[in-house]
């Protein structure tokens, strides 16, 4: 629904704005406002988060050992990653060490969560834009694709079912991994669970590879838009290990969309460089990383940083993408292919970990005492980099908590990019269905989760 309003309090008499509400095929409630001058030129486009739950305030005063289970509910998609970051922050505050086996299971679970999230995002949110770009809203959705190309949807849902079942075997839950607890994990997988999960993942390979071919074909169809489209501003950024993207990395790497070598920050330096840039018109508080702004985190950022040799299939696919198009990939039309590449990458990472050989006789969880202190953690989630900072008081309760979510890191870029797209596509004060769809596509390509962004 689009609505037209006069902008109150504007210096420009006669200034107006158009509101597009709600933004569809994303998680959470948001709108887009396009602001115009009195002579109907676009001044600014704003993607606004309309909700706020106050998760940080909910855990203040709570026993630190139960806080991760609340913080996991920061986001329905990246919940496992928030849970992991919460555990890591508490461990850092208490000086606890996590055993290698437990660390491996945590990563394994997170790779599977990342794969599942990307497959879901492709199926329901991204594919309709690429498979049915010119279609009417009534059919531009997963049911519409199912009617004309059932096989593609079946491939994706079959892969999702297998990944979710593997998660159930290893983590007890396909959404929030109960197994991840402060100090490690509550249980290491036995041989039966490892063998079943391996079997399930083997069955996904063909479906994920075929999906990659579909994404490649659909992206190629957008070649003209890629050539003429608005380039992304600023920097792409992700948690990395040895310069390659990682869920739990040892530094945060960033490089400019205009080219140049990546720069790296350690986790402490990264958190210290983060600045809040609150706006009055949205419940999402933008975050800027000093010297690296505006930044983009998420699948496209990680793909631009390049996959390592330990995942040869993903590295090959990533290389093919760079050869066909460019490096860095720098506009919204690479979103689908980034998701497809990362689905293979995370699947391959999970498969490697399953094959590593597990010692289920080692202790899954280090006993540790909750002590007062401050700890932080940075991890990469399906939607990009997120960070947690926990302060614990003498009674073992959380005294202060801070969450930095992917959409917050992306928010300056989202609005700058959206304004560029609106300036190019909106003509006059009327927003046609096609232009509304284009604006939403620009937002969707950042894979936004409003619930997580506003928390």
């Amino acid at each position, binding site marked *: 629904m689009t609505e037209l309003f006069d902008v109150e*309090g504007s210096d420009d008499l006669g200034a107006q704005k158009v509101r*597009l509400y709600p933004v569809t095929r994303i998680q959470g409630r948001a709108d887009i406002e396009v602001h115009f001058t009195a002579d109907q030129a676009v001044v600014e486009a704003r993607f606004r988060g309309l909700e706020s739950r106050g998760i940080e305030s909910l855990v203040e005063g709570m026993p630190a050992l*139960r806080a991760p289970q609340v913080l996991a509910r920061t986001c329905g998609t990246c919940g496992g990653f928030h849970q992991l970051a919460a555990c890591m922050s508490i461990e850092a505050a208490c000086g606890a060490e996590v055993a290698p086996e437990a660390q491996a299971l945590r990563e394994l679970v997170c790779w599977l969560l990342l794969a599942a999230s990307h497959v879901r995002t492709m199926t329901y949110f991204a594919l309709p834009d690429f498979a049915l770009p010119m279609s009417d809203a009534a059919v531009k959705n997963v049911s519409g694709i199912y009617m004309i190309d059932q096989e593609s949807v079946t491939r994706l*849902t079959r892969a999702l079912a297998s990944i979710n079942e593997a998660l159930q075997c290893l983590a007890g839950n396909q959404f929030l991994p109960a*197994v991840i607890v402060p100090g490690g994990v509550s249980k290491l997988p036995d041989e039966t669970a490892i063998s079943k999960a391996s079997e399930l993942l083997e069955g996904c390979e063909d479906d994920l590879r075929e999906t990659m071919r579909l994404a490649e074909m659909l992206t190629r169809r957008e070649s003209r838009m890629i050539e003429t489209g608005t380039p992304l501003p600023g920097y792409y950024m992700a948690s990395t290990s040895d310069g390659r993207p990682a869920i739990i990395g040892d530094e945060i790497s960033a490089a400019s969309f205009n080219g140049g070598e990546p720069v790296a920050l350690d986790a402490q330096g990264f958190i210290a460089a983060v600045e809040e840039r609150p706006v009055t018109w949205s419940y999402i508080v933008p975050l800027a990383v000093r010297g690296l702004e505006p930044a983009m985190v998420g699948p496209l950022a990680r793909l631009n940083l390049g996959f390592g040799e330990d995942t040869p299939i993903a590295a090959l696919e990533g290389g093919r993408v760079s050869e066909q198009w460019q490096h860095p990939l720098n506009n919204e039309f690479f979103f689908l292919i980034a998701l497809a590449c990362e689905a293979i990458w995370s699947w391959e990472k999970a498969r490697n970990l399953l094959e590593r050989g597990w010692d289920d006789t080692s202790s899954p969880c280090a006993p540790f005492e909750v002590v007062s202190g401050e700890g932080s953690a940075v991890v990469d989630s399906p939607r990009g980099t997120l960070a947690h900072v926990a302060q614990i008081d003498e009674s073992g309760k959380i005294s202060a908590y801070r969450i930095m979510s992917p959409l917050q890191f992306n928010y300056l870029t989202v609005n700058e990019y959206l304004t560029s797209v609106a300036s190019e596509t909106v003509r006059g004060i009327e927003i046609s269905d096609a232009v509304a769809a284009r604006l939403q596509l620009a937002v969707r390509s950042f894979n936004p989760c409003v619930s*997580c962004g506003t928390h």
Partner: protein
Amino acid sequence: MYIATVALSACGGCENSLLSIGEPLIALLSEHTVSFSSLLVDRHTVSPCDVVLVSGCIRSSEEEEVALEIERTSRKIIAVGTCAVYGGIGGLRKRPEVSSEDDDGALPEIYRDVAPLDSSVAVELYVPGCPPQPHLIMDALKSVLEGYTPLHFDSTVCSDCPRKVARKASKSLQLHPGPGVPGSTCLLNAGVVCLGPVTRGGCRAACTSVGTACTGCRGPSDAILSSQMHAIHADLTGYISRTSGARQDKVEKQLSNILEVLYLFTGKDPVTRSRVKERVPGD
């Protein structure tokens, strides 16, 4: 028939669970019409429907308006997830004031407290869980579309839990499994605060089966919801006392420091709060 989905104040976990149903859901949606769902289709107005799946609780003026609008336009409302059913984790405590002053006052007002969905609208069916498992959402949806009685779990999480109650249980309580509880031992018996005995079953004991305590995300069992004789606090205290041999007042004293972990998901549920034997913090 016409189907809709709406998310109010939620993390999106219930929506993910819905989407994870996969092909059976997509096939079902293809046979019917999605009248409104910002999650699934590009329609921008709430339009009439036969059944609407609503996740999330009410935390803002906008969510309250949306809830009332769907009540006007929908025949049957299914509350999906613990936020919609009980208020969820948002009910843990009042949040600080949030300024909703936009340049032109257009942001929704955020309330300090949450309310479950049925505080504003009449709900036909409840699917608790944080999030509920996909098959439970699918069963609820199909039961309304096809007119059969949906799955109902009147047992507790303990009924699905593979762990066994030991004869000699730990007398001290903790929130953490420590170096791990053996796979066959009841977590409560090992001294880990687990809400399994007082929580509705149907989750296949997802948490306890991997050695993590139940946090009560599916809400109170039928026994607690249906009688003033029962309560989360009283029943759990009695259970721990009986199985550990510890005096009830000693158990109560240990639990008093961590009361809010008993009500992570139900702190704002009017039924839970109305039980005389409950000790919901903030009362």
